[in-house]
């Protein structure tokens, strides 16, 4: 098997992993080597499904000893298996990096032999890249569940980011779908890495070694087991707070295995649901929302028609309309249609002049949504109140629809469709 076939098999096996960010790590090129870390990350290309490709995302091997129901590489699947040698993989990474195809390496692996054995192989690749080839690019190493803490620690010294995927958002479902795994075995490496990172953080010296400078991330599959959006958001909020995760990824379940424990194989991936979850995730990370503000026990699912920010605004008519001249930055951020950049521009600009609608239009504020939620001097006083039940249909259609003109909508068609006459005669 030549290198190209191996790359295809092992790239194909890794593609369901969503994480591909290269951000959070700033590093100059090491002496005598090449490669640097760009703190905001760089996307190098986008694949035909519109997902960004920034790292060379491959498995070291796909010959797995586990049999997880949702995974394409499970033991019982009949697929071609391949394993890189460390040298091949290192050479490939360096050549791709040299041509600016990639930002670094994302290395994961199926479990071959034992978790420790697998983890050692991954570390070997990262260590050789860093120490022998003086590679300064981004390295994302997967922490293999069940690997010993000594190895996890060593991985953190060479990698920029590490991740353990939780995959299924509830413990019971996880044990049902993946008999070899449970929540405890996934939380253990996460907590270990988070604690070590905190220890290193207190050491502020420029020369002290860095431990996972870009932190941790994790991923969950959406739509494989029957969990609610509220459960998913609660879990991810916990990850951001307790494990200090940099990112939590959601992956709409793509049916790859026929298994009676999973949705049928013809199910379409829940792309819209995934999109709404990411929007909610953004609200938590950049818009200072709490998870229980976005959803609660009574409404456990996100609205497919409207984004979560609009939904929050409609549930809280008492907060609107917002006066842009005087409101807090946090409140301006909560106005639908105003993003982080526009909010900053408004706050820094209103010291010098009044912010009017024409300013907002030029800033790129989506007035189509924002206009219902901001205070406008031209509106009479008694109308300055938000009526969610009136605004919801307006936001859905985009423009007000007048009922008066639709004279012919409710009339019966001139010629009724011919009725099947067979039933009448018999």
């Amino acid at each position, binding site marked *: 098997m030549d290198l190209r076939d191996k790359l295809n098999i092992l790239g194909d096996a890794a593609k369901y992993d969503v994480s591909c960010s290269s951000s959070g790590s700033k590093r100059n090129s090491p002496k005598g080597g090449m490669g640097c870390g760009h703190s905001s990350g760089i996307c190098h*290309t986008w694949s035909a499904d519109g997902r960004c490709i920034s790292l060379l995302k491959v498995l070291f091997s796909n010959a797995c000893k586990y049999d997880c129901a949702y995974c394409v590489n499970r033991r019982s699947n009949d697929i071609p298996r391949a394993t890189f040698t460390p040298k091949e993989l290192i050479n490939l990474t360096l050549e791709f990096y040299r041509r600016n195809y990639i930002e670094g390496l994302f290395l994961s692996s199926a479990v071959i032999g034992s978790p420790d054995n697998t983890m050692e192989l991954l570390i070997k690749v990262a260590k050789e890249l860093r120490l022998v080839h003086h590679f300064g690019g981004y390295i994302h190493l997967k922490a293999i569940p069940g690997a010993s803490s000594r190895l996890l620690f060593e991985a953190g010294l060479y990698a920029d980011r590490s991740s353990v995927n939780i995959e299924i958002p509830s413990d019971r479902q996880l044990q049902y779908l993946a008999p070899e795994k449970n929540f405890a075995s996934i939380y253990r490496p996460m907590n270990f890495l988070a604690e070590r990172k905190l220890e290193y953080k207190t050491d502020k010296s420029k020369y002290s070694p860095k431990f996972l400078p870009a932190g941790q991330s994790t991923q969950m599959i959406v739509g494989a087991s029957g969990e609610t959006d509220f459960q998913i958001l609660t879990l991810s909020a916990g990850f951001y707070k307790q494990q200090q995760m940099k990112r939590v990824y959601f992956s709409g379940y793509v049916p790859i295995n026929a298994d009676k424990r999973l949705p049928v194989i013809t199910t379409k991936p829940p792309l819209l649901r995934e999109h709404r979850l990411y929007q909610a995730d953004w609200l938590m990370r950049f818009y200072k929302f709490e998870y229980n503000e976005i959803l609660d026990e009574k409404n456990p699912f996100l609205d497919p028609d409207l984004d979560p920010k609009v939904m929050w605004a409609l549930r809280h008519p008492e907060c609107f309309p917002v006066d842009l001249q005087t409101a807090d930055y946090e409140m301006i951020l909560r106005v639908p249609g105003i993003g982080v950049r526009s909010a900053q521009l408004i706050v820094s600009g209103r010291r010098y002049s009044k912010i009017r609608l024409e300013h907002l239009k030029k800033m*790129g504020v989506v007035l189509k949504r924002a206009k219902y939620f901001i205070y406008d001097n031209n509106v009479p006083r008694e109308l300055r109140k938000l009526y969610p039940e009136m605004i919801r249909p307006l936001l859905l259609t985009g423009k007000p629809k007048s009922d008066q003109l639709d004279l012919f909508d409710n009339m019966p068609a001139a010629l009724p469709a011919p009725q099947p006459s067979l039933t009448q005669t018999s």
Partner: protein
Amino acid sequence: MSLAIHYDSTFDGFLSAVFEIYRQRLDVSGFVPERTYEAENETPSDLFAVPFHVETSEESANRLKRAIVNAASKDVLGLLETCFRSENAGIEMDILAYLRKLFAGLDPNYGKNPSSLEMIPLITIARSVRREMDNMLGMVRFNKAPDGMYVAEIEPKYDILEMIVGHFRGRYPNGTWAIIDVKRCFGVYYENYRTHFVTVPDPNYISAHAPPDEFTRMWKSYYDTMAIKERLNPRLLRRCLPVRYWKHLPERSLSGNFQGRSDSMQTLPSTVAQANALASMRLK
């Protein structure tokens, strides 16, 4: 009588022109940059304006730069230069309108106000120039020439080559490489820890000497395997990776199953044309 100011299309040239406008109290209707290539959207020439040529003078440009820094800030000067790189039609007049307000001195805080009606469009233009610059950091694709040099061709919408050079110098400090802006016929060449800006009369000559190799093909096939078939989303792809960049990205422009080197060079333009035609059909 209104004048059309001709200048040498550099930022310094533009500033010298502004300096002369103030010094001689000229009545300006537009600017005509003397470019050797065609910009994305060329300014339509004003038939009734009288052409007026301004020589670039470093001294007057520097004086004006100092004045801008004093009246506003260093950031504003940088922002104006970034806007100028957009080469948009009429961008000179927008900058001039801002400078006129700035130097009029009616509002002492004008230089600090980021939300004045003249400043907001400049901020949005600068934002899109910076966005292309950031995207270009990932979209430069080097090919290896037989002599060990790495060559890349780019064709950005805005004039951003000078803005991205620093990044690549930090990334490949020990290599020998060149990045060529095919549209503007100039490039940067890095060797022995030094960068040189060079004009490239015939860009195709250089790329023909660094054809795609085995790693390019591996990259292409890796790229193809990464797409999840159930999630294909051509609209999202085109939004993230606009079609105008595809020509210089091997993963989008190489055909999947070519063998030899010679025919690869011939198939390259036709596949791009096909892809572009397909994309435009879908857009309709």
